[in-house]
């Protein structure tokens, strides 16, 4: 890269260390990878140590500190992609390109690998090509893609329809009907004032849609009341659009269909807590949304809905988009803030919570996309109106991302309290064996639980709803999730860093037919340990899928387990095979197993 390009990237970000993520991303977009000299240059310019820059560059899946080809094809590897045949397709692509998954081709042209769920479960199998999303992969597209790569056709010139992403809204409700004109809710909010707005949010009974279901009014109140250490009393609003939970894609659709609702919700949050700056933390997988969202922000600035004096008032607020780079843990609010500050996304020690000490140690409210969009509706229509939908303790609507074995995967918005059975009927699911609600970190429901309801008081959900029919093997579902968590653990704390890796190995061992009862006992104990001692929600829930499948679908494990007690994962005879190859021996004495012994 010419140093002029790097200089202009650095200048655009004012050489600020907190902007390291964006500096690294743009540098990589310009060069294809992050060479050591560029890292050194970035360190010098930002005043960060080289080790700090390397630390961030090495943490995120989408940054590479070695060249990975002009074309990098990443197959989304959620269980729903697998059910749609991504493994065979990936193999076909590798075969057509003469390469091994995970390796760069010898001419440095291309690499093919897997990545965690890209949020396209309703239109998979999906891939990212140089971090651009392609959906609905099939054998034809694989062959055509291989030809385009071999002919070195730039990705920008690939068939446009490959990059089309459908919203698949099957059922709209309060939010997806998008009934508001930009600025309407803001005008109502400004008329009420920050405190009045908070009252409405409280009356609405709004609870966080990101998973924990924390009261939004309480969170905003704490943030408003917290003392800021900054001279200018800075506070921040963060919209969490990391949406990394496999099987979840509703925030993607909200940001596509109703970006004004989300940005206006953030602006109103700013009014309520007394913030002047907001960040949208957009997951790297949604890079394709960036330009459209920037355009919406520009339009809102031009309309006086963002900026120095909003709608003619003395309230000032603006929003910046921060793009992530492939790390599920950055959805955890304190890890997200670390990432916003340019660091590896490792959860902080809490307390202090972000509402008192968040971005740059200032009071910060982190809210889910759907929470903020709901807040916008409440500002416009009032809390009492909102509280009329849903149940008593779960007011309003919930958007579900439905995928897996059903006729109509896509987006379904319901009033809270809808039964699992109802959703299954609406999406055209048949002979359903299980539903994974709220993703791998959520809960797996068996048919005798389908009468249960999606609500904070029954089955809470961050949005994912993955359907498995009777042809599916629930052990393989849990194994896929075990590998997901091992890949996404940030590595900070012992129980999760090592525990997720051990669990993935246990599952592979069982899959290979070497599992034992003792392994199952160890898995149960590991679940208890991780749940009790992990530093954040990722580790605390990482063993849930294994635990749930073991309890509810035990036969899928039992039929793989022959030995009653202990069975080593290590196969000594297999380990000798390399020595046999090297020495050219295959006589009985070169084997350890009984059959080969004289």
């Amino acid at each position, binding site marked *: 890269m010419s140093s002029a390009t790097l200089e202009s990237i650095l200048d655009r970000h004012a050489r600020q260390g907190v902007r390291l993520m964006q500096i690294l991303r743009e540098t990589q977009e310009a060069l294809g990878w992050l060479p050591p000299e560029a890292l050194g240059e970035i360190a010098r310019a930002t005043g960060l140590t080289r080790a700090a820059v390397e*630390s961030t560059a090495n943490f995120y899946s989408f940054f590479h500190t070695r060249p990975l080809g002009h074309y990098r094809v990443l197959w989304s590897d959620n269980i729903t992609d697998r059910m749609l045949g991504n493994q065979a397709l990936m193999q076909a692509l590798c075969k057509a390109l003469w390469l091994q998954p995970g390796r760069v081709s010898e001419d440095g042209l291309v690499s093919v690998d897997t990545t965690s769920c890209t949020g396209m479960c309703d239109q998979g199998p999906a891939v990212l090509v140089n971090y651009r999303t392609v959906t609905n992969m099939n054998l034809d597209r694989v062959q055509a893609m291989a030809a385009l790569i071999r002919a070195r056709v730039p990705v920008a010139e690939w068939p446009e329809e490959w990059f089309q992403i459908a919203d698949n809204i099957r059922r709209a409700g309060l939010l997806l009907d998008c009934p508001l004109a930009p600025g309407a809710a803001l005008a109502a909010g400004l008329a009420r004032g920050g405190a009045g707005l908070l009252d409405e949010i409280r009356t609405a009974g709004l609870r966080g849609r990101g998973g924990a279901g924390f009261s939004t009014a309480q969170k905003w109140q704490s943030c408003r009341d917290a003392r800021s250490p900054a001279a200018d009393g800075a506070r921040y609003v963060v919209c969490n659009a990391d949406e990394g939970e496999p099987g979840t894609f509703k925030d993607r659709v909200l940001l596509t269909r109703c970006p004004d609702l989300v940005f206006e919700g953030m602006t109103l949050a700013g009014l309520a807590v007394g913030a002047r700056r907001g960040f949208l933390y957009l997951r790297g997988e949604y890079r394709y949304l960036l330009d459209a969202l920037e355009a919406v922000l520009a339009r809102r600035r031009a309309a006086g809905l963002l900026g120095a004096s909003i709608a003619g008032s003395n309230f000032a607020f603006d929003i910046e988009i921060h793009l992530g780079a492939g790390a599920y843990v950055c959805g955890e609010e304190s890890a997200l803030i670390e990432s916003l500050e340019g660091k590896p996304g490792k959860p902080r020690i809490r307390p202090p919570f972000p509402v008192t000490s968040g971005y740059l140690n200032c009071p910060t409210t982190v809210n889910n996309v759907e929470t903020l969009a709901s807040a916008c509706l409440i500002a416009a229509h009032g809390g009492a109106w909102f509280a009329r939908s849903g149940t008593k303790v779960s007011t309003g609507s919930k958007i579900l991302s439905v995928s897996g074995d059903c006729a109509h995967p896509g987006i379904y918005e319901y009033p809270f309290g809808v039964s699992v059975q109802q959703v299954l009927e609406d999406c055209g699911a048949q002979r359903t064996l299980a539903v994974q609600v709220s993703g791998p970190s959520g809960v797996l429901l068996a048919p005798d639980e389908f009468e249960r309801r999606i609500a904070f008081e029954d089955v809470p959900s961050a949005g994912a709803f993955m359907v498995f029919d009777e042809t599916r093997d629930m052990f393989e579902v849990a194994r896929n999730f075990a590998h997901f968590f091992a890949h996404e653990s940030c590595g900070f704390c012992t129980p999760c860093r090592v525990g997720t890796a051990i669990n993935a190995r246990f599952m592979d061992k069982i899959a290979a037919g070497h599992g034992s009862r003792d392994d199952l006992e160890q898995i149960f104990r590991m679940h208890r340990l991780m749940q009790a001692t992990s530093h954040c929600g990722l580790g605390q829930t990482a063993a849930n899928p294994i635990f749930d499948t073991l309890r509810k679908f035990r036969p899928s494990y039992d039929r793989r387990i022959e030995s009653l007690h202990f069975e080593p994962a290590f196969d000594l005879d297999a380990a000798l095979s390399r020595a046999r190859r090297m020495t050219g021996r295959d006589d009985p004495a070169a084997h350890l197993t009984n059959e080969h012994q004289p």
Partner: protein
Amino acid sequence: MSEPSHFKLDGEDIPCRPGQTVMQAAQAAGRYIPHLCWHPDFAPHGSCKICVVKADGRTVAACTFEARPGMQVENRTPEMDDHRRRLLNMLFVEGNHFCPSCEKSGNCTLQATAYELGMANFHFDHFFPDRPVDASHPDVMLDFNRCIQCELCVRASRDVDGKQIFALAGRGIRSHLIVNSASGRLADSNFAVSDRAASVCPVGVILKKRVGFAIPIGSRRYDAAPISAEAQPSPPPAQGERP
């Protein structure tokens, strides 16, 4: 000064002051809560989780959890020690620890804590990671095979030495210690054997050269008495002194 308040640690009264963590209060009272990444001279880190305790029924890290008067804390209960043995197990299999040939044997906090907790066997298969040694520096060598990612060297170099020589890079099980230099070698950094970071490693990663085995195994720090015997009550702070 107001009378100190108390909480219960395994049924015993322990004085505590506002802002003090369970670990600090226990340490001041001469009580041992097993730990690896905590060190009295540095800000708590909370990553190893060996200091898990149950506070009023909730499992928390003693090093980061604030002690509150009247609280009931379970420390050396079978349940907590079982968690600890498992976590130690996991730290052992994650790295390459060959105690009999390790220069740190007998002075190693990981080993001493495992003895203290009676960790007798491994429940898990070893990972056998590939971690090259860095012997480039004239006075100090780095054997990453034994790293438990406590980040004490990271904190010492940053907070005491003002150098920021160490950092963790990578994610998950691939997380590893790196050195701040263009080559990644310690010799090319401004590290000095007199740095606080040179003597803070609780295991055998950061080792001073030419002093190996000066004290024979058998006469070392934890050979004489178990690690728990080191906890001694500290004198109460003088009148007017800030906690």
